[in-house]
């Protein structure tokens, strides 16, 4: 049980994608203009990550090592196709907003990375923990980046106005250049926080 918790929580801070593991930058930059699209994509990623981790972990003894990458890719691509079709059927407005980023979950290095690094070497329960943790960490990260961009950029959060009416949004933040700049600033902030944490641990207080 404790190892389950450990694998789950590592994805939430220590190894959180995309802030610590700088992977999967493209969707991070692209869908974080609005909190709703970030949340939508995050859920899709969690689903695909869980399915792929579970399936790969279940069959890990049967997948020959030489062709493991194409096999992983087929499994991940099938999960992504499920997400695609489900979104198109039941969440059509989200599907239109996310557009090309849904099929692009396939090439999200996060999912293949977890399959390669974890799922093929560990049992199903631990893989579920890892997938859940990483997926949740990823979703939380992109939602917080999206919140930053949306609140400062448009004065709304999830479509609800939060800034006073006189606040003219810093619209740059919701456009592509703003995405790069925001992510860069957040990564610098993460560096700052981990430096502080290390200092605190180091002095032994």
């Amino acid at each position, binding site marked *: 049980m404790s190892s389950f918790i450990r694998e789950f929580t590592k994805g939430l801070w220590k190894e959180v994608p995309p802030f610590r593991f700088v992977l999967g930058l493209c969707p991070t930059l692209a869908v974080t203009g609005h909190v709703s699209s970030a949340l939508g994509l995050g859920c899709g990623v969690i689903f695909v990550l869980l399915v792929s981790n579970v399936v790969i972990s279940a069959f890990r003894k049967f997948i020959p090592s030489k062709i493991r990458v*194409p096999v992983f890719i087929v499994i991940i691509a099938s999960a992504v196709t499920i997400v695609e079709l489900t979104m198109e059927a039941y969440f059509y407005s989200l599907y239109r907003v996310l557009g090309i980023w849904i099929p692009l979950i396939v090439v999200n290095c996060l999912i293949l990375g977890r399959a390669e690094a974890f799922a093929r070497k560990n049992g199903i329960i631990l893989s579920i923990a890892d997938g859940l943790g990483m997926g949740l960490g990823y979703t939380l990260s992109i939602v917080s980046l999206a919140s930053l961009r949306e609140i400062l950029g448009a004065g709304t959060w999830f479509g609800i106005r939060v800034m006073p009416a006189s606040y003219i949004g810093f619209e740059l933040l919701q456009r592509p*250049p703003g*995405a790069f700049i925001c992510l860069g600033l957040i990564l610098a902030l993460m560096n700052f926080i981990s430096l502080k944490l290390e200092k605190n641990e180091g002095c032994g207080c």
Partner: protein
Amino acid sequence: MGNYILMMVTAIFANNILLIRFLGNCPFVGVSTSLDSAIGMSGAALFVNVLSSCITWMLYSFVLVPLELEYLKTVVFILVIASLVQLVEIILQKTAPALYRSLGIYLPLITTNCMIFGVAVLNVQQKHTFMQTLVYSIATAIGFDLALLILAGIRERFSLGRIPPLFQGFPVALITAGLMGLCFFGFVGLGQ
């Protein structure tokens, strides 16, 4: 002819695949630390992008659509791209070892590059003809190469400057990319 030139200009500047469309960012930030590796990556990206776009387009038009299997495009495209890169690697190794060596490690790195897959899907989504697919894939790759080379040049200069320790590495690269994006953003509307 004019349409193709318009498409190229738009894809390279106004809709730059990297800075505006966000496709291909992982290698963008990862490989741009030195100009040499950036050049290697650019060549490999152009090569694979054009090849994979054409092949996936043909597969989609002549196999998936007639059989009404369009929803399989995600699975099929990614498998095709992965195998294509593998095949190209093997062929290059045998027939043009010098080119293979100069492309180096960047060839296999391109398999999970969102740009290759993204451009393949975009071609299909935007219902391009074959010629349009060809032109679009060349243009997007050129846009990628342009942005990559510029960023690599800037980052090489950085190594000589003084950057606050918090910002070293990714943060400063991303902020620089943002400023570059700002410049390219000025091109939006060029297509009109």
